[in-house]
């Protein structure tokens, strides 16, 4: 089933057109990877899936993004949209609060006050984020005191705590060491069972390791979008081939 449908999407930053006529379908419970050289629009497209680009001044959009067949640029409540479509950022960005409060921030935002419910959500989310065992004895510790890899898993757990349907990940391992990266990749595989995941990555090996489908972007356009295996073994477009064989980018 198609979780997200992107139809004729154009996006402008002021005069500059960052995305050109994007059409794409993202399947439920699948991991889709966006690859391409810097500035090709992959992160921009990711951000337009939960309207984080609303925060950027001078950003204009035309076309449609349908989440379960509902246009997210229509009359939808943006805060509810972002609850359904969560996001993990490039740099770990935990709040300067305790681990517990970081995880509980989202649920509290959406009106959950009961201590026992929050305790439950915090534990479940930290387990889902594969970090529970490392922090269960220090939930009151400031999240900023953790290592970068742990912080990023806290951020993933925080995103999971509001029970999203889709998880957007913007180069989630680019600031991390290889071991933390591996942990996060395993985690992403695990999360696929319950969530639809879109991941932007600079690392082509990562795309082959974690994703089911891959889209290759160049200068604001989708050049090729197909099964990951196919894209990397038998690319149809010359530009895709040049990119994945390392001739540019």
């Amino acid at each position, binding site marked *: 089933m198609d979780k997200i449908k992107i139809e004729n999407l154009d996006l402008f930053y002021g005069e500059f057109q960052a995305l050109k006529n994007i059409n794409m379908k993202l399947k439920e419970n699948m991991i889709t990877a966006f690859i391409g050289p810097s500035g090709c629009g992959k992160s921009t497209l990711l951000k337009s899936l939960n309207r984080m680009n609303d925060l950027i001044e001078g950003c204009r959009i035309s076309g449609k993004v349908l989440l379960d067949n509902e246009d997210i640029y229509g009359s939808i409540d943006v805060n509810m949209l*972002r609850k359904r479509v*969560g996001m993990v950022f490039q740099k770990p960005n935990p*709040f*300067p609060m305790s681990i517990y409060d970081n995880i509980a921030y989202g649920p509290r935002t959406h009106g959950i006050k009961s201590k026992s419910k929050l305790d439950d959500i915090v534990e479940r989310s930290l387990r889902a984020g594969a970090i529970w065992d490392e922090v269960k004895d220090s939930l*009151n510790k400031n999240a900023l005191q953790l290592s970068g890899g742990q912080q990023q898993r806290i951020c993933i757990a925080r995103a999971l705590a509001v029970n999203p349907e889709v998880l957007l990940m913007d180069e989630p391992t680019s600031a991390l060491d290889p071991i933390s990266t591996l942990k996060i990749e395993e985690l992403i595989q695990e999360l696929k069972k319950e969530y639809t995941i879109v991941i932007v990555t600079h690392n082509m090996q990562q795309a082959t390791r974690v994703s089911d489908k891959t889209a290759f972007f160049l200068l604001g356009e989708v050049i090729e979008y197909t099964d990951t295996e196919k894209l990397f073994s038998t690319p149809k477009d010359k530009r895709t081939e040049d990119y994945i064989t390392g001739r540019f980018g």
Partner: protein
Amino acid sequence: MNKLSRIIRYLIILSAFITFATLLFVVGYILVRGIPYIKPSLFALEYTTENVSLLPAIVGTIIMIVLALLISAPLGIFTGFYLVEYARRDNKLVEIIRITAETLSGIPSIVYGLFGLLFFVTALSWGFSLIAGAFTLAIMILPLIMRSTEEALLSVPDMLREASFGLGAGKLRTIFRVVLPTAMPGILAGIILSIGRIVGETAALIYTAGTVAQIPANLFDSGRTLAIHMYALSREGLYTNQAYATAVVLLVVVIGINALSTSISKRLTKGNLDG
């Protein structure tokens, strides 16, 4: 080269020493001259020309701090929030507010005093009163609070705001739960500086709050702060020793206020870190 670096090293150490020694000398001198004249009669409830009590001035100082901050802190803090969180970055008004604030903070305090005298005391006919003084001081410290709030908010990384919005939190929640706690130490630093200016101000107050040396009955009474009390005592020339004693008390009050604000700010940030 090695010689030069050694000379510069000595110069730097010398500068630090001179700075420290100056401070130590001033404080020490005041303490030595003032402490012997601190007597119980100096803290009498009623001021007379016999006891030249400074208790009314302490009361006046506290009232002045509280009033001026009550008026100015909310205004300044909210203006800072407007500039950083609400106004568009290319907004002309923001630039104008910034220039205005900068200009206001460069004006000598006696000019504020004159304005207060003409406007609050005379035009609004509040007379020489605590309230006229507090409003004058509030205008004076407004740019300080506004700018320090603005700086503090600007130093909160955008990625924290993004994280909050990304979880479906609205603007108000993001500002109050994430941005404000993170910026709190910076905002408090501005308020502490403002308190310093209120406590040290004389020129603007002589024109507006007057110099009556009794505990005021209400806000429309005239009253003096410790700094004005000191000025009055030393100007008359009869109570130089008591002026020094007052200076000691003023020092203690300032140190006390600083310690209090630091501990409040520590507790706030710690609360922010732990829970």
